């Protein structure tokens, strides 16, 4: 069953038989215990400064609840504001209006409970691979021996155990991305914010990491917000997939994915659902192209 819900229209969901059911219920029912959502984006907007001095609306009134332990994937055309949304949740940008609530409390600063994997790594060139991965643990005050162990564990996870002493510039593109993944996972935060973490990886490595990520998620009950441009990946991993509109970024539609796990990227069910979502996304991308060519 795939539930689609149109956020801009009625807050209802279509069930398998095409009957509309109220969204709130559909969202909350799978996990009734979480009365307050883990994350609550309230009417979130953000404007960027542009060169002229005017301000460009990047995100427009995003309203979204993420329950604890949910795996939410976000897709949308390039430049629609996916990374921006993660920045806001991480507390790295301040919203122009609206707020992000975590466990009911307003997010103002960054916090080790929300660790992000940046689209452009953000690895520290002055530290070795090992020290990069260790960084978050050190900041959390984890004791040295434990730190070393965890670093080893997560570097092995991303197949970089041999490169622990290398500096960042000595790694290939894909290797850098894997260090960034290890760095974020090692910190073991409540909420993981992942910005296209697997974009530079080959299919095989990516599949392996999908499995690992899913395992970690299932074992630890972490909340994950996962940005990707690969719809199939989103369906493979997510409990829910949110589609953003093109400039300004609004919540276009959400899909509840309740395919049984473990899923695989090549499953026909995954592919089928992905096709549905892709249709939706394509609409947005076409809109963006229209904007482009109308000038």
């Amino acid at each position, binding site marked *: 069953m795939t539930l689609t819900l149109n956020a801009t229209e009625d807050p209802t969901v279509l069930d398998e038989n095409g009957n509309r059911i109220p969204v709130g219920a559909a969202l909350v029912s799978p996990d009734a215990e979480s009365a307050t959502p883990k994350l609550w984006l309230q009417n979130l907007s953000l404007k960027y400064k542009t060169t002229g001095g005017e301000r460009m609306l990047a995100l427009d009134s995003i309203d979204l609840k993420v329950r604890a332990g949910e795996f939410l994937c976000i897709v949308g055309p390039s430049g629609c504001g996916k990374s921006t949304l993660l*920045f806001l949740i991480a507390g790295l940008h301040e919203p122009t209006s609206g707020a992000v609530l975590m466990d009911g409390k307003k997010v103002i600063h960054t916090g080790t409970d929300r660790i992000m994997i940046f689209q452009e790594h953000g*690895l*520290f060139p002055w530290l070795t691979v090992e020290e990069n991965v260790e960084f978050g643990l050190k*900041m959390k005050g984890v004791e040295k021996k434990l730190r070393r162990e965890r670093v080893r564990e997560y570097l092995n996870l991303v197949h970089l155990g041999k490169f622990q002493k290398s*500096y960042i510039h000595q790694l290939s593109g894909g290797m850098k991305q894997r260090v960034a993944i290890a760095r974020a996972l090692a910190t073991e935060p409540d909420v993981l914010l992942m910005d296209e973490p697997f974009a530079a990886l080959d299919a095989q490595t990516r599949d392996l990491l999908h499995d690992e990520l899913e395992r970690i998620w299932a074992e630890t009950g972490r909340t994950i917000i996962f940005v990707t441009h690969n719809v199939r990946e989103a369906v493979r991993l997510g409990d829910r997939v949110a589609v953003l509109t093109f400039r300004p970024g609004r919540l276009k539609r959400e899909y509840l994915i309740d395919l049984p796990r473990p899923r695989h990227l090549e499953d026909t069910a995954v592919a089928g659902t992905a096709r549905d979502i892709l249709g939706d996304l394509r609409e947005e991308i076409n809109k963006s192209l229209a904007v482009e060519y109308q000038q």
Partner: protein
Amino acid sequence: MKPIARQVIFYGVIFGLWSLICKLHIWPPYVLPAPWAIVEALWAGFQDHSFPIAILASMRRMLIGYGISVVLGTFLGIVLASNRFFEQTVSGLLVSLQSLPSICWLPLAVLWFGLSENAILFVIVMGSLLSVTISMETGRKQMPKIYSMAGRNLGARKWNLFYHVLLPASMPYIVTGLKQGWAFAWRSLFAGEMIYVTLGLGQQLNAGRDLNDMNLVIAVMILIIAIGTTVDRLLFRTIEKRLQMKWGLLSAT
């Protein structure tokens, strides 16, 4: 081996040209002394221990003064970084103070510290402190935003953010600042040693100039250059090389 050969050639050519000019007798020797006269002056200075003593005295001052500058300058940089009020007020004042020539500080140095070693140190510190502070500020401003974002995201706050992220991320600028600070300190030393007559290279230079003894002036200049080069090579080049190695700024193959 090759760079050294080049340097030998280079300094050889300079020496040769200089000798040539002297041989041509364009200026009398007490105005532009010949290289061999300088060598003699150097020899004499080392022979009667006046140069070693002066170098030791001056280097001691430099080490203390520059050390204070680095520590205090770093501290000031931290304070400025952490406090907006200071940044908007003290910071501007500091930049302008940096352009005050050292002699402006002489009267205040005497007033506050009397005729003591401390007065000289004060002049050195006032001359170099600020370039350390300012370079820390510049580094913080020119550093790519992603580093501080990643650091904050991973839980670095306040002191940790500063020490583990901002500081290393702006290290290339800070090293430049330390280098400039050294040059400033070194220049201020000569101003400071003019407060009163005391052992030191500044005194040697002053004596040479007061007596119009160009041999001595140039011998001291050569000492200054030699010490400057040594410090640059041993200290700053090493740091820079390490930085470049870590950051991947050297050729990879």
